[in-house]
Each structure stands twice: as structure tokens, then as C-alpha cells.
């Protein structure tokens, strides 16, 4: 029985893979009809295939898809934020410090969607847009949140627009910095700069006492 050529077993597998040539198939059949041991081998292999294929077709458990959704990264911006923090460790440390200083840091960006602006006597408000009219001069910084600002006149100070756009007429004149903040990141950065000032003055104040 050990005299059988190795290729007979190989032909058996070719046969099971459905890839046997007619010549090999003839040779295999001729051998099997005369060799009980190889016949048994072939039979066992066929039984193995049937046995494995008898495995039932199970399905994913209930709640599987919801589980995937729960594990997905929440939004693009958060993925980006994570990467950004990763490559800016010093800023991350500073941000962490700020979060400890002010627990409302993130929530204030998301929750505070109200249109608001720095009150000045000589400005005009149209819907969610603040206008500095032509010929008027605003003294002090202007901050507009969740709205736009149109500057036709003059601002002696900084102009900051959070979640909005600033429109500058050709006649406009702003002595300070003009900044548009529309992303969580910019907002974070803005808060950190503002926070740093606060922290500095806070520490200075303590020291003074």
C-alpha cells in the first residue's frame, strides 16, 4: 500500500479542486479501481469536504452594526484634532492646562450659537450682521459671534468674527488686527491666547497681594 505513487494523492486533490485534467482523471480512476487503500483515502477526503461544508451559516449577532457605528471615529474634525495634538505636544500640554483652567472651553464653542456682539453706540445691526457705518468711528475692540460684520467706517482696535464673515468696504479702516474664527481649532487657539492673558493677569494679581 505504500508502493502507490505520490502523484495519486496529488491527483485526488486536483480532483477535489475541480482542476484535474482528463488524463489525470483517467489515471486516478484506473488506480482507485485497483487499490483499496487509495480508494479509502479518496473516500475520507471527500468526507472531510462534506463534513466541513455541513457547518451552519451563522449570522452576525443582533446589535452588531450598531456596535460598529459606536466604534467609528465620531467626526472628521475630531480625527484631525487628535492627529494635530499628536504633532503639537507643547500646544497640547498648554491646551490641557487650559481645559483644567476652564471646563467650559469646548462646550462654549458648541453650545453658544447665539448671535452676539460688542455693544457700541454708533453701530447698526441688521438681522445677524453688525455694520460700522461710513463716517463712524468705533473706539475699542469689536467681537461678533455667530454673525457677520461689515465695516464701512473705522474701528480703533481689533475686529474678531467668530463663526461669521467680515466684509470690508474700500472706505474701511481698522487700526488693530482682523481675525475670523470659524473652526474649533481657531476657536481653541483664540481661547488659549485669551486664556494666557487671563492667566498672566491672574498670576500677576496674586503676586501683587
Amino acid at each position, binding site marked *: 500500500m505504500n508502493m502507490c505513487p505520490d502523484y495519486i494523492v*496529488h491527483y485526488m*486533490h486536483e480532483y*477535489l*479542486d475541480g482542476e484535474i485534467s482528463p488524463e489525470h482523471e483517467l489515471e486516478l480512476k484506473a488506480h482507485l479501481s485497483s487499490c483499496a487503500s487509495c480508494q479509502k*483515502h479518496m473516500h*475520507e*477526503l471527500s*468526507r*472531510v*469536504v462534506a*463534513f*466541513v*461544508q*455541513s*457547518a*451552519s*451559516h*451563522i*449570522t*452576525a*449577532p443582533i446589535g*452588531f*452594526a450598531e*456596535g*460598529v*457605528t459606536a*466604534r*467609528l*471615529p465620531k467626526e*472628521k474634525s475630531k480625527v484631525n484634532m487628535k492627529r494635530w495634538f499628536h504633532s503639537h505636544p507643547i500646544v497640547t500640554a498648554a491646551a490641557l492646562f487650559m481645559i483644567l483652567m476652564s471646563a467650559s472651553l469646548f462646550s462654549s464653542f458648541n453650545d453658544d450659537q447665539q448671535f452676539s456682539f460688542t455693544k457700541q453706540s454708533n453701530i447698526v445691526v441688521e438681522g445677524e450682521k453688525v455694520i460700522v457705518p461710513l463716517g463712524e468711528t468705533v473706539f475699542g475692540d469689536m467681537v461678533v459671534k455667530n454673525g457677520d460684520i461689515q465695516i464701512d467706517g473705522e474701528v480703533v482696535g481689533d475686529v474678531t468674527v467668530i463663526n461669521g464673515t467680515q466684509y470690508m468696504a474700500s472706505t474701511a479702516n481698522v487700526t488693530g488686527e482682523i481675525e475670523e474664527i470659524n473652526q474649533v481649532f481657531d476657536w481653541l487657539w483664540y481661547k488659549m491666547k485669551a486664556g494666557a492673558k487671563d492667566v498672566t493677569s491672574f498670576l500677576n494679581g496674586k503676586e501683587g497681594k
Partner: protein
Amino acid sequence: MDALVNKRIKEVLKGDQNAFAEIVELFQDKLYRVCYRMLGNKHEAEDIAQEAFVRAFVNIHTFDTNRKFSTWLYRIGTNLCIDRIRKKKPDFSLDADVTGTDGLTMYSQVASTDDLPEEEVLKMEMQDRVQYEISRLPDKYRAVIVLKYLEDLPLQEISDILDMPLGTVKTRVHRGREALRKQLSNM
């Protein structure tokens, strides 16, 4: 099917997460099944199959839509399963001297560490027995046997999924069948 899947993929790329939920619905049974057969444990299978979907989502921009999505997804899933199986394996350096000429002996040694006594095996329900015998297969044969006989995939596709030459896949299917034949000799 492929056209629908590619449409959903484009939506996912535009940032629509709900489109991905639809892809999960379409493929969850296939992927879970393969993971379950590979790992032999429902909790692990759920964990790994979910992880595979998360990785598919995160890396969806690398998927070439001219190819078959299921092949790509199966590849992520089987790689995770194989990693998990390898991590679970006991340190077999002590058994290294029993390595046979074709490496089969060492794998059999490792696989046999959680073998059950024969009378236990004979008492098993048919479905448990099938899963038990699949889990006893060395993992390099297990993957091809699962993909061929439980998922009914062509050898060429298995070669794409496992990223190995067609000839290697064939050899492993042959050896896998022979290994099962030996395992089942008492039936």
C-alpha cells in the same frame, strides 16, 4: 452589488457616515462568519469583525474601487484574526525541537494544547464538532479551508485575500484537507 457598494463608498468619502452603516449591513454576516470560524469564539469574533469594519472605514480612501470590496474587507478581517490567534498561542519555544520537516508537526503540537479527550469529542453535537475540528487546524490551513469551504470562494480570490500566490493557496488547501482527514480518522 459592486456598483451599489462603490456608490456608498463615494458617499462615505464625502463624509457621510450613514452610507457606511449600509456597507456594514451588507457584509456583516460574511465577515462575522469568517471571524467566528477562524477564532471559534463568538465574543472574539464580534470584536474582531467590528474592528475590521472600523479599520475599513478609517482606511476607505485607500480602497481601489476597481477591485472587489469584499476581498479587501476579508483581507482586513483575516489579518486581524491571524494576529489574534498568534497572540493567543502559548510560547512554543520549548516544543521547537519537535518541528517536523514541513513545519506541520510544530503547528500540530501547538494546536493540540487545547485538545479534548476523545470521549468528550464523540459526545459533541455535530455543529460543535465541525467548529472544534476547524479550530484544531493549524492557522495557516484554517484560513484557506474556511474561505474555500465555508465561504465558497474561488481559489484565486482566496489568493487575493491572503495575499499569497495561487500555488501556495492550493498547497494549503491540500494540506488542510489531509490534516482534517487525520483529525477525523476516529469518526
